[in-house]
């Protein structure tokens, strides 16, 4: 159990011509569950391997509880890590596989036996303990692999590299719940790499969104959803992601095409010029007064509890998440209202202000 601090950590796989990870400095509190969220190739696994010591960063230092561990090898750092696909010792039984990390550290036999039973119970693999993992289905194999990561109690952190990729969808929910429960009991520092936002948002106390080797935003699930700081976060978090439209700021008025959608609310005034207007599908509604942005409905998807309305506007395509009562059909022309405070203006893909929709005329 430890606080993990990274200081200007960056990594290049090709000796410095391109960086898989740009300089990052963060501190993750002891006992926190941190999710690293991002698309494939964004540097999240690189970051994880740097923490576990499988990779030495090209620059920067790694600290556990204030102690510099950058030059320590993986075994000495004592962290646990679970990989994306099952990695098992073929010649050992499931029980021996689970006991292996403890055995290598000279833990007494009684403690090993007890811990192995406990973990097998937690993961629901007790009945497979005495057979070889090769004979198991791949999702069960992954559970054994996961168990090897969880079996040690004295680790400073447990790192997960998309551990639930091969697990069946239904069982994923159960397992996430059990991991969460285990975390509440043991308060290990957890770092969890995933590209699945649901997983990240349900699992973590703190979500770190990575893109192209940079941390774009850190925060809780609702921070990321309600106040995205970056176009990428808006687009990547949420299902479907944020809508973006080309707009203009003209003396404090925000225009999309010829529709004025509001005035800038930002304390600092925003210079006139082009902006990108971002709005989540959840924060759009039908404007009965006819003052909103005129759009033509393209397609209506019934998703049970809500409707997804795909629409075209002069400035591009739109998706709105509307409740079931709204009677809409394809081909219909309507006006859309933007939710106050939830409409963001972006420049160079960073947020530069919000919109005061009440100022719309």
């Amino acid at each position: 159990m430890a606080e993990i601090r990274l200081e200007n950590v960056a990594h290049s796989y090709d000796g410095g011509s391109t960086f898989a990870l740009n300089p990052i400095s963060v501190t993750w509190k002891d006992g926190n569950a941190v999710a690293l969220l991002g698309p494939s190739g964004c540097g999240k696994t690189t970051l994880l391997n740097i923490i576990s010591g499988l990779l030495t960063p090209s620059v920067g230092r790694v600290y556990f509880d204030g102690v510099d561990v950058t030059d320590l090898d993986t075994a000495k750092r004592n962290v646990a890590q679970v990989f994306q696909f099952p990695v098992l010792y073929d010649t050992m039984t499931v029980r021996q596989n689970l006991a292996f990390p403890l055995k290598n550290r000279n833990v007494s036999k009684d403690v090993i036996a007890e811990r192995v039973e406990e973990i097998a119970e937690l993961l629901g693999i007790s009945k497979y303990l005495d057979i070889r993992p090769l004979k198991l289905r791949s999702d069960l194999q992954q559970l054994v692999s996961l168990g090897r990561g969880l079996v040690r109690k004295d680790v400073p952190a447990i790192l997960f590299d998309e551990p639930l990729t091969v697990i069946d969808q239904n069982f994923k929910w159960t397992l996430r719940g059990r991991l969460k429960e285990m975390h509440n009991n043991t308060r290990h520092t957890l770092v969890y790499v995933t590209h699945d936002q649901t997983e990240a948002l349900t699992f973590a106390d703190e979500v770190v969104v990575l893109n192209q080797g940079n941390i774009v935003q850190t925060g809780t699930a609702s921070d990321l959803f309600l106040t995205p700081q970056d176009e990428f976060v808006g687009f990547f978090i949420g299902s479907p992601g944020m809508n973006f439209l080309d707009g203009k700021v003209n003396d404090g008025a925000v225009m999309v095409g010829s529709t004025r959608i509001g005035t800038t609310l930002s304390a600092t005034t925003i210079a006139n010029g082009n902006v990108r207007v971002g709005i989540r599908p959840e924060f759009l509604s039908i404007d009965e007064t006819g003052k909103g942005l005129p759009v033509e409905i393209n397609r209506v998807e019934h998703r049970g509890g809500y409707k997804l309305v795909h629409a075209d506007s002069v400035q591009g395509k739109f998706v709105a998440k509307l409740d079931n009562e709204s009677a809409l059909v394809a081909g219909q022309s309507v006006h859309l209202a933007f939710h106050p405070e939830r409409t963001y203006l972006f420049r160079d893909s960073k947020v530069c202000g919000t919109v005061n929709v009440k100022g719309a005329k």
Partner: protein
Amino acid sequence: MKTYNNKAWFLVLPVILVVSFTALIPLMTVANYAIQDIFSPDNRLFVGMKWFYDITNDTLILSAFKRSFQFSIQALLIQIPLGIAIARIMPKSGWKASAALVAVAIPLIIPFNVIGSTWLIFSRKDIGLGGYLLNKFFDFDFTSDPIDGWGLILAVDVWHWTPLVVLLVYAGLRSIPEPYYQAAAIDGASTYAVFRYVELPKLRRVLLIAVLLRFMDSFMIYTEPFVITGGGPGDATTFASILLTNIAVGQFDVGRAGAYSLIFFLLIQIMSFIFYTVLTLQDREEVTKTK
């Protein structure tokens, strides 16, 4: 109704023809010799199984087989561990890996009798560097001491064929995915544990091939003892194939040699089958247990 069309057999015909001329017909010629006593092409006598009975009581032949068998076991015991050890310390990538591979593979591309001649001269105590140096420490003369002769042939075989084991094991090691090593590092496994629980299980198949190839080749060793020791000193290095050649070509006793060849051939088949069965035991257990 399922339709049957036997025309596909014609496609197999070329293979049957080729195999007939390369293997079946020569082998049947040998089988033909083995049941006759041939004095000259026109003067032959059917003797049935006589040669086979003779051979089972022939101490010369039996001790030659025993010698070959001991030689193979010793060659395997040295070459397999040595090959694994060398493959493990070879560079994994970059120009160093290529350089190491080329260096290791050199003995494999030298003709057998060149190897024999080279070692023959190298090991002589009067004009050979190796023989001269060895004699600084103890008396080494492969032309008169049976143990020295045996040791030299074994050393030549190790030098010549360990590279094959190295190449096979090296390829096997390179095909182990990186996460296995990473997981072992996370689990705190020692170097020995990584070898024992990660590498060795993954190498099982290439080691099976290495053991089979090395057993067959060393059991049939001919050129090196022929060139270096000529089967001596005494009969210390008269391995099964050396004796076979003496009987067939030297004494022109083709009937006995034919029977000898068939038994030799069968022995190799049986031994290879035993090795294969033992080494793949685990695989078959797994197949039968999963449904």
